[in-house]
């Protein structure tokens, strides 16, 4: 791109980009229509009824009710349309499909540390396959950042102490901007890089290339032993913690009432901050790992619990109710699924 006059839209490189742009076009049309209408009328009346002489008297017009109603209701209707459309698009942009592949992203002043499930790592670059939905799990080691990919029209704040998610499905190969969009200190504007969209096989080759490393789930399995998690989460008579096999994605009954789904955010929280939510039928004995684990280690444990243990069957003869719910095939509480 030279220094010629820039285009008006960023590249459309994801499945949602076009949809966002269509809505944008509608909004621009509304903007243009009302601005021209009102500013135009203002000028028109201003000129047409400009005072010509001192004797020029205004003619008092009494506002007709229908007019007041019309110009309240018409904007309201427009707003309803925008609102519904906006909400639908929001859920679309933020709801990852089930078959999405997962990539871990850790924000730290001032870099993005990215790890693929194959173990490949990179910094300030994100390689992704074309046409495959990609889900990013975002955590921060220090302050709030935001992971922004304008070409994909997606962005999400990266907040310390919790895990946020976003996803996209790239439709164009090439390199696109990656920015940190939430102010995070001195080098906020240098906390950027690029996202590289590659054909699937090129991506596979890249994964195996020089950036390759130990898969986080394997790393997590090691940590699980080193940190002695297994002492409490191993199937056996003296087990003190709940069974983690088959836990991922299942509803968990909590002490004091309430259910949560064991998603990434919940499992992450269970590891770093176990006293926040206690599984029903258990004491909160688990040590607080909050300040002892780096975000990468937490991600490794998470990958292990999610991808390795999560795919295993819960053992039949577990001493305490597995994952908190008897017969954990039970569907989530209706009130929670209704929101969709």
């Amino acid at each position, binding site marked *: 791109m030279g220094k010629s006059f820039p285009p008006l839209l960023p590249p459309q490189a994801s499945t949602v980009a076009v949809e966002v742009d269509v809505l944008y076009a509608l909004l621009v049309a509304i903007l243009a229509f009302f601005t021209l209408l009102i500013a135009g009328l203002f000028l028109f009346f201003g000129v047409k*009824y400009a005072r010509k002489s001192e004797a020029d008297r205004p003619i008092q017009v009494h506002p007709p009710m229908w007019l007041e109603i019309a110009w309240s209701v018409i904007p309201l209707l427009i707003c309803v349309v925008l609102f519904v459309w906006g909400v639908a698009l929001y859920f679309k942009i933020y709801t990852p499909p089930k078959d999405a592949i997962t990539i871990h992203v850790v924000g730290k002043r001032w870099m993005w540390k990215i790890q693929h499930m194959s173990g490949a790592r990179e910094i300030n670059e994100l390689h992704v396959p074309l046409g495959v939905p990609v889900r990013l799990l975002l955590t921060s080691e220090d302050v709030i950042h935001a992971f922004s990919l304008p070409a994909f029209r997606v962005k999400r704040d990266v907040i310390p102490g919790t895990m946020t998610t976003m996803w996209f499905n790239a439709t164009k190969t090439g390199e696109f901007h990656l920015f940190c969009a939430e102010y995070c200190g001195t080098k906020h504007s240098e906390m950027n890089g690029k996202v590289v969209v590659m054909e699937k096989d090129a991506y596979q080759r890249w994964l195996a290339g020089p950036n390759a490393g130990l898969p986080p789930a394997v790393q997590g399995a090691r940590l699980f032993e080193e940190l002695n998690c297994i002492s409490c989460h191993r199937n056996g008579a003296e087990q003190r913690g709940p069974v983690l096999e088959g836990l991922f994605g299942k509803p968990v009954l909590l002490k004091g009432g309430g259910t949560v789904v064991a998603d990434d955010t919940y499992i992450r929280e269970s590891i770093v901050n176990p006293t926040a939510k206690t599984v029903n039928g258990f004491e909160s004995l688990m040590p607080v790992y909050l300040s002892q684990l780096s975000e990468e280690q937490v991600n490794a444990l998470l990958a292990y619990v999610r991808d390795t243990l999560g795919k295993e069957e819960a053992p039949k003869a577990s001493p305490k109710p597995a994952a908190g719910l008897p017969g954990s095939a039970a569907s989530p509480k209706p009130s929670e699924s209704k929101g969709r």
Partner: protein
Amino acid sequence: MSTPNHAAPQYQEEENYLTHDTSIQSWLLTRDHKRIALLYLLSVTFFFTIGGVFATLVRIELLTPAGDFLSAEFYNQAFTSHGVMMIFFFLIPVVPAVLGNFLVPLMVGAKDLAFPRINLLSWYIFIVGAGCAVFAVLTGGLDTGWTLYPPYSSAYSQSRVTWAVAGVFIAGFASILTGVNFIATVHRMRAPGLTWFRLPLFVWAHYATSLVMVLGTPVIAITMVLLGLERVFGFGFFDPAKGGDPVLFQHLFWFYSHPAVYIMILPAMGVISEIISTFSRQKLFGYSFVAMSSLAIAILGFLVWGHHLFTTSQSAYTGILFSALTFLVAIPSAIKAFNWTATLYKGSVVWETPMLFAFGFMGLFLIGGLTGLFLATMGMDIHLQDTYFVVSHFHYVMVGGGVMGYMGGLHFWWPKITGRMYSQFWSKLSAMLIFAGFNFTFFPQFILGYMGMPRRYHSYPEEWQVLNVMSTMGASILAIGYILPGIYLTHSIFLGKKAPANPWGATGLEWKTSSPPPPHNFHETPIVTTEAYDYQSLPLSETPEPGGAR
């Protein structure tokens, strides 16, 4: 020219509030709302200049993609200081504390605000708060962004956050006291016969604003207390390591700061209502709709703060609620815009300087408000949040709406405040320069924003240079537009033509007394028998001729 001879008795040689005592103490210990308004005018102009200088630095830095003019640290301090000065110490107080202070008692026909001493106290509080903030900004700087988000502000920033937090906390009480004063004055001090629905819309707007000030400002005050405790003693409210949630700060912050944007725009809207009806010599179209829409904005404005949190960890369901309510709060603004325009219909329009500013307000606020709808649309905001699109949106509403309204009001009531007329030519030129320069500065930023340029960026990719250069060029025009009034208005104080009591032939009570008004506003308490903007029954001789009263 025909001086309106029976407009108000000519108290030419009589004492007015400026001349009756000129000692320094008489200014610093004054309880006269008109003098306090002038104290505010001077201080607020000073802070605007500081903010403007920082804006200039920001725009110069952004001329080139590389971060070469300022260091990254200093750039961050520059936009933060710009935002803090402009919002907390310029735009929030400017219309209420200057024009409102001067005019609300005059418009309701009272001798003063209900609590004159508290009014003076509020100015001192404001100065102490502003002093803390200026101290923070000028020594060691402040680099958190005006939004002061933790954990950056609480645990990471090396700058003078605590001072700035103290400044915002203290200045908040100035705002609260002003609000309390207006509420009591509007309820209890109206002249005989001045019923609610005879009040000028300026008063309605200030009443609505006062409600926001009293109900909202304390929340920012306590938020600053929590942030201060967090930063100084590590209380941990927003510290994830202690189980705190940084997003809670954002809730608390925006619970005030969204309503605060209506503190900035509502009074300006009140100004616009006065100007439009005066210069088209019509009762404002749909008076009661415009009055009620101010209240509606004030109330609904409290329920939408979460639209700043769409991309955080805020629940999507709560987001839906916030989005819906945000659209709802746009409706009263729409009602105002349509009624203002309709007021001109079959009117008798004179394009004096204030009217030019009013037109500028209409054009720019519309664009600002309508781009607010882009941001309120949840799916759209994901892409736009924290980009230059937002920066552009809020400059359109705040500078294009708020500052334009203020400039219009200042030019409208300048003859009343100082007793002098200013230059017709230069003021019109300034209005047009501001309008043109403004669009030139900020329109390119919408495009930049949609292209994805994040805000608070010291350096940026090369392909965005063209638009940034345009923006900086526009900003220089804008700066000239703002410096001009400083010159010709100052000039007018000393050398301007003496203003008659009612130079524009307007109807409000403030025009029934001399220019400048006597110390106690009215020689006898006015009695009101007509509705506001009753131009039909105004004698013809009070109608200004085209070209004004000079």
